[in-house]
């Protein structure tokens, strides 16, 4: 159904001394401080850490939604920092899928139109994209809901539409910011199943910002951020939940 993302030698994501500071002087907030990480293609990574630790900011920097104060970030070997707004839009359109905590579906579009939206922007023919959307909807339990507007869908259904929107068209990278935060256990598990499947079978790189132990259990690498720094970065077996993940700060 979907093309497999490209597999050049470059990591999916690489950052080098990445910094992001909001505000100036005494009120400055150093959201991200000198983070250098490399995330290879096909990884399933969870960014964890307390609120305000810089997870969302790091994801936004990777997605080119905000500019770093210092440092550099590469996606699929392309440096994001020096790109124009148009080039960043093209990068996001062709390489990155976003999933947000608040679903962020466009309310005037139906589930099908929301899911096919990025493909439409890419110029995929109507018939092709509808076929792909309906096929994926069937896989992720959204069959028969394609004509509904977001307001007529449950939270879990909306989030699955958001995931479909993010992964259709085979992005190399999906950035998911607290995707399970508003979902119940069943919906969370179903959603994670879908993402895991896409990761395993299609090699899509997933980076999650999360507080959810269920997400962290499924992740094969966890990066813990504290105060904008990488406190710990470790690979793990699926199903494990290392104790350091949930340790309080400064413990």
């Amino acid at each position, binding site marked *: 159904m979907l093309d497999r993302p490209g597999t050049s030698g470059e990591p999916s994501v690489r950052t080098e001394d990445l910094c992001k500071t909001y505000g100036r002087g005494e009120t400055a907030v150093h959201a991200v401080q000198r983070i250098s990480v490399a995330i290879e293609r096909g990884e399933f990574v969870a960014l964890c850490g307390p609120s305000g630790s810089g997870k969302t900011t790091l994801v936004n920097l990777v*997605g080119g*939604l*905000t500019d770093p104060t210092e440092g550099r970030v590469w996606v699929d070997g392309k440096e994001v920092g020096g790109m124009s707004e148009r080039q960043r839009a093209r990068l*996001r*359109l*062709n390489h990155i899928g976003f999933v947000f905590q608040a679903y962020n579906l466009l309310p005037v579009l139906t589930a099908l139109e929301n899911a096919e939206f990025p493909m439409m*922007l890419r110029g995929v023919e109507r018939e092709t994209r509808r076929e792909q959307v309906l096929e994926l909807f069937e896989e992720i339990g959204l069959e028969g809901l394609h004509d509904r507007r977001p307001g007529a869908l449950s939270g879990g259904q909306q989030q699955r539409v958001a995931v479909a929107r993010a992964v259709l068209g085979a992005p190399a990278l999906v950035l998911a910011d607290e995707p399970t935060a508003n979902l119940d256990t069943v919906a969370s598990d179903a959603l994670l199943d879908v993402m895991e499947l896409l990761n395993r079978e299609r090699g899509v790189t997933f980076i999650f910002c999360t507080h959810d132990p269920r997400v962290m259990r499924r992740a094969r690498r966890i990066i813990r951020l504290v105060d904008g720094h990488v406190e710990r970065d470790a690979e793990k077996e699926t199903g494990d939940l290392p104790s350091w993940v949930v340790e309080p700060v400064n413990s």
Partner: protein
Amino acid sequence: MKERSFWLRVGWRNLGRHRRRSVITALALAWGFAAVVVLNGIMEGMGTDFIRSGTDLMVGQIRIQHPAYEPERELWDVVGGDGGVPVDLLLERVAADPDVLAAAPRVYGAGIIASDSTSRGGMLMGLDPEREGQVTHFLDGLVEGTLPASGEWEVVLGEELARQLRTGPGEVVVLVAPAADGSLGNELYTVSGIVRTGNPEVDAAQVVMGIDDLQALLALAPGDIHEVVGAAANPWDAAAVARRLSAALADLGPEIEVAAWTEFRPELVDFASLIRGANWIILIIVFLMAAFGVANTMLMGTFERRREFAVMKSLGMRPGHIVVTVVSEALVLGLVAVAAGALIALPLVLWLTHYPVDLTRVAGEQMFMETLFRFVLRVEHSWAFPLRGAAALVVTAVVAALYPAFRAVRVPAAEALAGR
């Protein structure tokens, strides 16, 4: 751009999110559009009525004279006569033009008219009453008696002139006038009728008689005339008709000069330009208001949807696509407003076209620029102006949406997604 209908559909749905606000904005635009169309029609109607009134009353819309006749108006500068242009052929050629309704010959002179009790200066006009009635309307103002019969030495006097002479139908008056041969022509005439044109200068001096009778008084040959006046089917086409006639009559000799009212009543052209200028000012004012209305609505819409624009950006939407999203909404708003405006304007335009409202009883008749002006609310409509107005309204809506669209493009994605 591909998926054009998709963006229009999205625009339509976005307007539906704040139905009341969208309806109010669309209605404001629709009223503006309807007002512009109806006002333009009324102004055009007034302008045309004014032009018609200024030309149909006496001077006509097309004038054919000897090139030397104006401005001195010497009696001997005639068209036709011995060795000249045959007047019947001239009239035939003029009437043959498809845009000429009718043509009539005239002879002019000046003299003294005396009744039993007093005398006054008079402007003499010899004409063929039947033909003249097809070209001008001043003889419609006959308030007493009958039109002069040719060869019967009858005259029709202006109302004020008759009052000053203390004469009326059936009375005899004496006319004395310098003739073309240098002699002094004089003759007795019977007053057959009194005419009121509404033009004080004309009513105080006009003496109308059969063309043969005036030719005899002024010692002109039977074929000598000073002017042929013509009525054009559309006054605004008169200049083109005059040019065409000039070419068509060229073979009849060099003593013919054809002019349209636009040349011999240039002040009416200025007035028409003034009306059109006023139309443009109204249009600009209304559309400026429309632009602010649309800009306000779209700005509010884009401010409320900051997060959505941030999502669109995160999905890889290019700035141009975001502009298209906002502009599509304005485009739909403009199209809806035009449709609603047309529904409002059409009945009014049709009503005022077919049933003009005569305000003469309230406002009276006014002389303005030597023209009798009657206040009649009549719409003269063409498709060109409403179509241009509709296009202008839609373009205005789209242009007004550009700034809000620019603001939408500039939404900082990360901050908007975080709700900041």
